[in-house]
């Protein structure tokens, strides 16, 4: 496509739309097909877990750091996980410098909710001493190249990062907080494997995994997080509306495609063996 700045031309809109009407997409995919994922895990030496994920042209690098601190008063025996996202200006002429904007906050929150409500992280295991010392996990998502659909790529990146984790295990000893010499791995921390599936809508056509031109044209978008047998979170954005039948259809599709993707990507292979 023509180098995309802020405005997409009419003929490009028509091009994408008229081909969608024939159920064809400009990159040759079907309506319910993902672009290729490539995944590399635990590549960052300074981090306690990391993943370098590409989805088509989109590339996201995520890293995990931890700290030990006080728990929330209403969850005294649970660790805390927070997700942050940065749309780096180097990733696209569409991204500006500065503090996180709406788009990066949305990305962080949708990925966060996709993980949180799937009960993915065993936060009770992340407790050293009730009411006093729990783990705080920082999952930080950095977008390196924007090729569309940051959410799904971000989700896989965050999940793989958690699976690749190797966090020093602590205990309260005689001199206070000390290291047991052992590590938590993804096997201890991750219980579920939620995937987020994002669909775009243009006119009345819906399709999975929008690439960048499709995303810029789409009037609506819906992201559905699924585990093997549950739907755990949904986010609709954009001005387009979805009919009830469409939503039911998409939930069903998400379960199917989610299962397939989970099997194909086989993220458990990235569990670190420390």
């Amino acid at each position: 496509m023509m180098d995309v700045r802020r405005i997409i031309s009419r003929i490009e809109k028509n091009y994408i739309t008229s081909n969608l009407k024939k159920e064809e997409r400009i990159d040759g995919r079907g309506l319910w097909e993902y672009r290729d994922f490539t995944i590399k895990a635990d590549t960052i030496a300074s981090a306690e877990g990391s993943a370098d994920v590409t989805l088509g042209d989109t590339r996201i690098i995520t890293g995990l750091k931890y700290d030990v601190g006080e728990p929330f008063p209403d969850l005294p025996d649970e660790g805390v996980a927070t997700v942050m996202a940065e749309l780096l200006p180097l990733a696209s002429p569409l991204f500006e410098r500065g503090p996180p904007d709406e788009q990066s906050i949305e990305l962080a929150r949708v990925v966060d909710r996709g993980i949180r409500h799937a009960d993915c992280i065993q936060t009770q295991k992340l407790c050293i001493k009730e009411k006093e010392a729990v783990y705080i996990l920082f999952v930080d998502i950095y977008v390196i190249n924007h090729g569309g659909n940051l959410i799904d790529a971000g989700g896989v990146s965050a999940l793989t990062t958690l699976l690749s984790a190797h966090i020093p295990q602590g205990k309260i000893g005689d001199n206070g907080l000390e290291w047991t010499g052992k590590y938590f791995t993804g096997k201890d921390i991750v219980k579920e494997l939620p995937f987020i599936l994002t669909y775009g809508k243009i006119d009345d056509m819906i399709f999975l995994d929008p690439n960048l031109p499709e995303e810029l044209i789409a009037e609506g978008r819906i992201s559905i997080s699924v585990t093997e047998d549950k739907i755990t979170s949904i986010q609709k954005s954009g001005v387009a509306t979805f009919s009830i039948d469409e939503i039911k259809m998409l939930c069903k599709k998400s379960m199917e495609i989610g299962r397939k993707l989970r099997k194909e990507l086989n993220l458990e292979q990235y569990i670190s063996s420390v």
Partner: protein
Amino acid sequence: MPLVIKDEYPEKLFREDGKRLDGRDLTELRPIKMEVGVINNADGSAYLEWGNNKIFAAVYGPREVHPKHLAKPDRGILRIFYRMATFSVFDRKRPAPGRREKEISMIVSDCLEPILFLELYPGTSFEVFIEVIDADGGTRCASTTVAALALADAGVPMKSLVSAIAVGKIDGKRVVDLSGIEDKAGEADLPIAITWYNEEISLLQFDGDMDLEEMNDFLNLAEEALKKIHQIQLDSLKSKYIAIQEEYSEEKGGKGD
């Protein structure tokens, strides 16, 4: 408070066998890998792995200046934004840029600006975004090196490349290419960059103590090492094109179109 305190001040910086802690000799460089054209949205880009350092650089320009009041009517401006990811360092870094990042941005900019022809692009800006996603000593040198590469990849006319490296003194011995530990625990640290156009120094900082003879020796050591860095930069710029040429020259022909 992280549980495991990284031992950043080990007692000895040399092993029993005389090698440095990571197994290197005094003047040996860490493994370095460079690649260009890695971020296809950018006008030019490069990626570098230098020991455990992993750094991306992307160039956008020439383009409009934002905010407008920074634009210069008679020339373009070069803006460098050096940033580190939160997980690039052992103690998680706060996301917002700090003073060190701003200082390094400025130093890199002073180093790269003279090789460009900014008078040809009045009223516009070239922006170079450097993102360190893993850091282990010598990031400002690695960043300068990869930023120069990204500018070349963008097709910005340049008088030459710039190469940078840190030399220093650890446990009394002069070494080339300080790792993170050596940087923190050593006695002297000298990041240095050379502009190949006039073969003069365009970046120079120093922390520590040394005498005059040591300083002379350092500068000589550095020059040798910088030539090696330069060669790696040149190879990474050419390799993609040469590989394609070789692929097709084996076929029948060489007959021009």
